[in-house]
């Protein structure tokens, strides 16, 4: 009944865990297990019993009774990390107040050229550039996002002035929003500025230049990835002909 056999397992890598079969919820402890494993109830008799981190390689359902009811041993597959692993109640032992805060927030100031006020946004609230720009559009409600194929431009429809979203990274450089993967962006962004396109001429050129190359039938995110990589490289060299 011991987890001693765990010694043989590989280092309990993320990839080996998949609790999707267990159907446990985050409710109060002791919620009835609705799993299918034969060994639940009775013998091991532990309702909120041991979690089973037995590596999927072990497979066999007879490997100790120390499983949470549920057939996680049945689940195999790639080593891809599970999307949402079932969490045990009260584990890790971190107080609720701290857990709430740990949702972490990444506040940055947003300035818009010509607008009289700054706003503050929590980058952690968004999962993609699209969401962020949508939120900015709401905040500075005179703007709409122009939907080019993969545009990052923001248009003030009233004045006909175009804005480009830029950000200051941790090195103090001003970059075009969208040039790095989203998660990296959240980490390195210190503040945002919606810059008038006329001021961002060099950056805008880059966008225009690459439009033709990105007209392919792929997900927008992938387009952005392709563009961002390219933009990164381009920004390094400055011998570019300005856009007519």
């Amino acid at each position: 009944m011991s987890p001693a056999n765990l010694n043989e397992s590989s280092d309990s890598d993320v990839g080996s865990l998949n609790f999707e079969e267990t159907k446990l919820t985050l409710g109060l402890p002791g919620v009835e297990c609705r799993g299918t494993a034969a060994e639940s109830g009775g013998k091991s008799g532990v309702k909120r019993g041991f979690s089973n981190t037995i590596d999927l390689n072990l497979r066999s359902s007879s490997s100790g009774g120390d499983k949470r009811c549920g057939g996680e041993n049945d689940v195999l597959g790639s080593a891809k990390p599970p999307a949402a692993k079932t969490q045990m109640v009260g584990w890790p032992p971190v107080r609720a107040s701290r857990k709430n805060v740990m949702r972490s927030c990444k506040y940055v100031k947003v300035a818009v050229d010509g607008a009289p006020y700054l706003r503050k946004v929590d980058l952690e609230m968004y999962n993609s550039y699209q969401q962020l720009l949508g939120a900015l559009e709401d905040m500075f409600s005179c703007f709409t996002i122009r939907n080019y194929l993969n545009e990052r431009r923001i248009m003030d429809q009233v004045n006909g002035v175009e804005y480009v979203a830029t950000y200051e990274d941790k090195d103090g450089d001003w970059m075009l929003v969208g040039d790095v993967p989203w998660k990296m962006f959240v980490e390195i962004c210190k503040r945002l500025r919606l810059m008038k396109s006329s001021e961002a001429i060099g950056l805008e050129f880059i966008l225009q230049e690459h439009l033709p190359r990105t007209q392919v039938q792929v997900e927008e995110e992938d387009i952005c990835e392709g563009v961002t990589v390219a933009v990164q490289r381009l920004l390094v060299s400055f011998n570019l002909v300005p856009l007519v």
Partner: protein
Amino acid sequence: MRQDLVLEQMSEDDDRSQPSDLRSSSSSINKTRNCSGSISASGSSTSASSSSSASSIPLSIPVTEYQSPYPDQVLENVLENVLCFLTSRHDRNAASLVCKSWWRAEALTRSELFIGNCYAVSPVRAMGRFSRVRAVVLKGKPRFADFNLMPPDWGAHFTPWVSSMTRAYPWLEKVCLKRMSVSDNDLALLAKSFLGFKELMLVCCDGFGTSGLSFIASKCRQLRVLDLIESEVSDDEVDWISSFPEGESCLESLIFDCVECAINFEALEKLVARSPSLKKLRLNRYVSIVQLYRLMIRAPQLTHLGTGSFSPSEVMAQGDSEPDYVFAFATCKSLVCLSGFREITPDYLPAIYPVCANLTSLNFSYANITAEQLKPCHKKLPQTSNLLGLQAVAATCKELRELRVFPVEAQEDIEGPVSEVGLQAISEGCRKLQSILYFCQRMTNAAVIAMSENCPDLEVFRLCIMGRHRPDHVTGEPMDEGFGAIVRNCKKLTRLAVSGLLTDRAFSYIGKYGKLVRTLSVAFAGDSDMGLKYVLQGCPRLQKLEIRDSPFGDAALHSGLHHYYNMRFLWMSSCRLTPQGCQQIARAMPNLVVELIRYGSLENQEKLDDVETLYMYRSLEGPRDDVPEFVTILRADG
């Protein structure tokens, strides 16, 4: 500082655990020595032969009555005058065991009453013995309640205590509660009953709201300390800050960083302005950095500052010049403790540089910043706690005594940045470390062994490898040897929390070497009953034992019978206990309260042949009378 002393005591355990009441209340009165002869003050003794030893306090006297020519009162007065210098409750407990006279004198001179488990003794009994108390420290729920392992409304109500105190202690000045359920009515009663009330500290408490705080603020005219630490405060939409009376206040400490609702900033600013003695101020996250600035320049004498959000408010005018935050920090020359940073906008961080060199405590655990951003701070910090960038910490914080590293995302399956590398670095750089709480995703025995060898002053070692049953990720072995080294090499170790893949061997080490361990926390560990047996039989100082999800059963439980009266409590949840096994314990130990806590509905009760949670503790009062329906107390005669 008084407060710090109490907070220390909050986590300390009783060294001398035997409740003296257990002895004297039984039929042992005949055997008690009576140093001072007859009880009455008049002193009826006239025998000449006994006068010689009256000048010294007779300690080694025969059991028979001793007649002294001097009035007992003199002796008792001497005792009282000496005993009032004893502040440590452990020393006082020892003194009270000497003889009846000392017991009485000690009882009359004890001014701080510490109750480690509010159910171990009744208010009436405690207050009957100690009649001149000015400060009460009360602890309620066991620690695992913090992690949702206990249903709400389990108990630990403050109400019976405060009611008794209003009668017994009209001159009460200070109350500290930890993990108690406190209602607004309790606070109202407290506020109006004690004219000289000075200090209220509520740590990990719940059940009250801003209306309760308002009573305290408005009625306690002598209030010096109002500390709300990690408590849950409900938002009754009462402006409690405005409830503080006008005129100069004697506030020295105002801590409300855990309060999750907005406060009236104008009122707070005025309050700070009229509190010249204010030394500790910890703001909640609803205070913006601009507001913080305004407070800081009004209170340059602050020593402890919780910075609130450390972020601008949602909307701010562009073009407005921002206040000079560096200036504000530079003005607060006495700052030694910094915390908060709840919603930090990183570009404000440099503002704290002026005070870094003097900081002894730094809490960044609520801040979402990277190690990169913290680098410039490190060089200036003599001691820190709760920092990221562990290698930098190790390199610069040579005086570090306490470190706590929390997970940014408290989930198991996320690969995090904290590992054995950080622990190893800390152990090499911070040789004076006394206390460490370290959450990580993976660990190695080597790093833990290194810490045991490099940090001999360790008293508290709490390692939480968040993945359950994780072995040493390099060798694949259990973490037995690492923890074994900790108990073997750290001779001052009193508190230990273990994690990762552990076999019974780890527990054999703890039982063999952990002779000073008072608090032990176990989760998802061990192979068999032997594990728990090792600990119960090997650790004579064990006071608080909390275990979850480990394969220990009735036999193991039974092996601790000799020790349970010496402990404050034992918690075992999701282990292998049966109601019958627990019943045996209850039968064998009548002064133990054996609670079985269940979570399912009542109908399922019969179907369970296992125990979900056992919580047992010694008590002079027998089963409590405020038991909720999900708790069953096993009777000795059951």
